[in-house]
């Protein structure tokens, strides 16, 4: 096992160097490298080098953020900033991002877990072996009340880069000219054990500005729940044996937006409705309308509906307001509890509101302990987004043993953060706007 040991003399600088030395190409060996020259430092509240993640990807995009670890929620990312090539300063996207709950009710009604607030998710940070963070760096995390008290320092935070395949592809004007680029992402992840399950919490920052957040459930099915009744489970033993009880995993993320360095952002909802062809028209038509969300909202997914959070101060070079759009992954919403009945919530920032259910801090008498209760008509000036992605787990034979990772999550896609594709090659840089009009 290679350990990056930092000599006392160069310690302060060395820590900063190793942060910046994540492999950009797959074949280079991770280790201290030449320091990266940085653009103007971000204006927001910062953190020391040991708690900063900064990665310049091959395309010229830099992602920067602070991290720390919380007792219940686990990994917290703050001041997440995106700086594509051509931007002189980092653009802040998120002031704070973390999980807000993993809610696991079992179909037979016998038990219901709240992993972050009751089952020690935060205490269960796992050590990762070097092979679990290929091409990357594993950092030490001090875990309050770690479950193995002899080892409170856990090698538990992996930062690495990974290829995602085509970022774009387009035939050029001449027969043998193709514009294509292979995309590269910064990956940040931890593994937390809760009872039998292990959850991989993954944050994936693409070189084109997209952020993907996913939780992967793996480990083992609950060995104490193999006696499911009719319609409540699936046999994964031989024949009609071993009916593993079905259950849901409802994962919540809490995102405090800070577009362009301010927490004062706007929320908008878009709906598209298809109607029959116009008189003499060829095809059905589709009309998209915008609803400004000015008050707290418990939002429900609907066909051709989406939300975005819009900057109030920042515009791109096309003079369009910068924004980030929610792109949910597949979700099976669980109607059994009030807080899981909606797909997304927007609440006005309140520092006591930390968990989507079984909230620990006091938000006042009668204020409620779950996110659905906090949607109570407040004006939305400092919006916090809570995303709920559910998975109904009906076990299958392949779930033993160990259980293959099952991912659930969503993305935040940049909308008008840049005036063009941040990866636009120089030859195409003048193709902005309608081809007749030029830029």
């Amino acid at each position, binding site marked *: 096992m290679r350990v*990056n040991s930092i000599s006392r003399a160069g310690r302060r600088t060395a820590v900063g160097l190793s942060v910046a030395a994540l492999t950009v190409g797959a074949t280079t060996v991770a280790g201290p490298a030449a320091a990266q020259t940085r653009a103007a430092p971000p204006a927001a*509240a*910062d953190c020391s080098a040991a708690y900063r993640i900064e990665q310049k990807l091959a395309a010229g995009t830099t992602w920067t953020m602070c991290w720390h670890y919380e007792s219940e929620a686990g990994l917290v990312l703050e001041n997440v900033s995106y700086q594509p090539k051509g931007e002189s300063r980092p653009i802040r996207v998120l002031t704070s991002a973390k999980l807000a709950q993993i809610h696991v009710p079992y179909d037979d009604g016998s038990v219901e877990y709240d992993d972050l607030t009751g089952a020690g998710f935060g205490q269960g940070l796992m050590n990762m072996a070097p092979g679990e963070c290929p091409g990357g760096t594993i950092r030490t995390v001090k875990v309050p009340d770690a479950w193995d008290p002899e080892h409170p320092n856990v090698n538990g935070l992996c930062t690495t880069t990974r290829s995602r395949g085509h970022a774009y592809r387009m035939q050029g004007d001449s027969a043998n000219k193709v514009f294509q680029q292979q995309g590269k992402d910064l990956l940040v992840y931890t593994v937390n054990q809760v009872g039998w399950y292990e959850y991989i919490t993954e944050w994936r920052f693409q070189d084109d500005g997209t952020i993907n957040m996913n939780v992967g459930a793996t480990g083992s099915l609950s060995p104490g729940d193999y006696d499911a009744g009719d319609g409540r489970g699936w046999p994964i033993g031989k024949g009609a044996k071993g009916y593993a009880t079905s259950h849901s995993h409802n994962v919540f993320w809490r995102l405090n937006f800070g577009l362009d360095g301010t927490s004062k952002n706007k929320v908008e909802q878009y709906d598209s409705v298809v109607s029959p062809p116009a008189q003499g028209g060829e095809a059905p038509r589709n009309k998209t309308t915008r609803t400004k969300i000015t008050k707290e909202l418990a939002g429900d997914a609907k066909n051709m509906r989406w939300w975005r959070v819009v900057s109030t101060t920042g515009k791109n070079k096309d003079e369009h307001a910068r924004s980030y759009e929610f792109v949910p992954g597949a979700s099976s919403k669980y109607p059994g509890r009030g807080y899981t009945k909606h797909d997304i919530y927007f609440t006005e920032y309140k520092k006591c509101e930390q968990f989507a259910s079984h909230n620990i801090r006091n938000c006042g008498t009668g204020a409620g302990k779950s996110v659905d209760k906090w949607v109570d008509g407040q004006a939305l000036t400092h919006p916090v987004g809570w995303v709920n992605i559910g998975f109904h787990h009906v076990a299958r034979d392949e779930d033993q*043993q160990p259980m293959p990772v099952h991912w659930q999550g969503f993305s935040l896609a940049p909308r008008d953060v840049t005036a063009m594709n941040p990866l636009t090659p120089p030859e195409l840089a003048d193709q902005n706007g309608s081809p007749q009009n030029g830029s």
Partner: protein
Amino acid sequence: MPKQWDSSDSWRNRGVGGNVRTIVHRHLGKVVAGAAMAVTGTAVMVGITLPGSAGADDSGGQGSGRTAQQAGQAGHAGGRQQSAVQPGVVERAPAEGDTGSGRDPLTDDETERVERLALDRGLSRAGENVEGGRGPQRITVDLAEPEVGELDDPAAPRRAEVSFYDYKDDSLVTRTVNLDTGRVEATDTQHGVQPPLSRAETVEAARLLIADPLGAGLRADHKDATGKKLTDPDQLLLNSMVFRANPGTPAPLAACGEHRCLRLFVKAKNGPWIDSRDLVVDLSARKVAEVG
């Protein structure tokens, strides 16, 4: 209630006074003993690659092999890399100063300091910890989030939230301490709110369970699995889950939620997991009871 597996010496059902116990062997990477690896009756699992040995052989390790459901979101893996990706580099923990800056987590020094500041004379004299001793039980110390007006202020004060559980009156007390000024800015007291158990509380619960008549099955399973008598929580690795009563909960545990109750996940050190989820420890009443 008991789970019937094909006969295998990896699984055993034990009935002790009507209380059925099961030993489960769980994969824990290198910790697993070869002979006892099979969880079901078949020996299919023996060939599984364990995490520690996988690193050196990783080639094209950039594939993420996700399910179709997730592929659209995270972006599917590509990149046929000809040379192997190197395993990760484990970075040694950096030296820690006295104070953190900005949004750094609390240093050890800062943590000690805010605990001291938060625990004023009144609270330490009147409060009671999980063992019945003087002073409330420390639960968590974390960096606090800013006030709404401070969200965009890089010079916002550094604050900590310190929470204690007072067993005298079953209250969760949270104090917000300003690290810059050293002052306690807020105190909040709640009843009926149960955060995850601290290490000390989990250990105390294990102590109560080991000593209790209802812990007979646990003691027997431990003896079977390790050959040693179970006398001390030190022999175990422990996880816990908060237990809250609901309308169907048996009377002895009806106060759980107002009381601080938990279920234990027990693992013998260098041994198997032992399922003890049908037992609940009420730390407030210092008793053990069966549930469901």
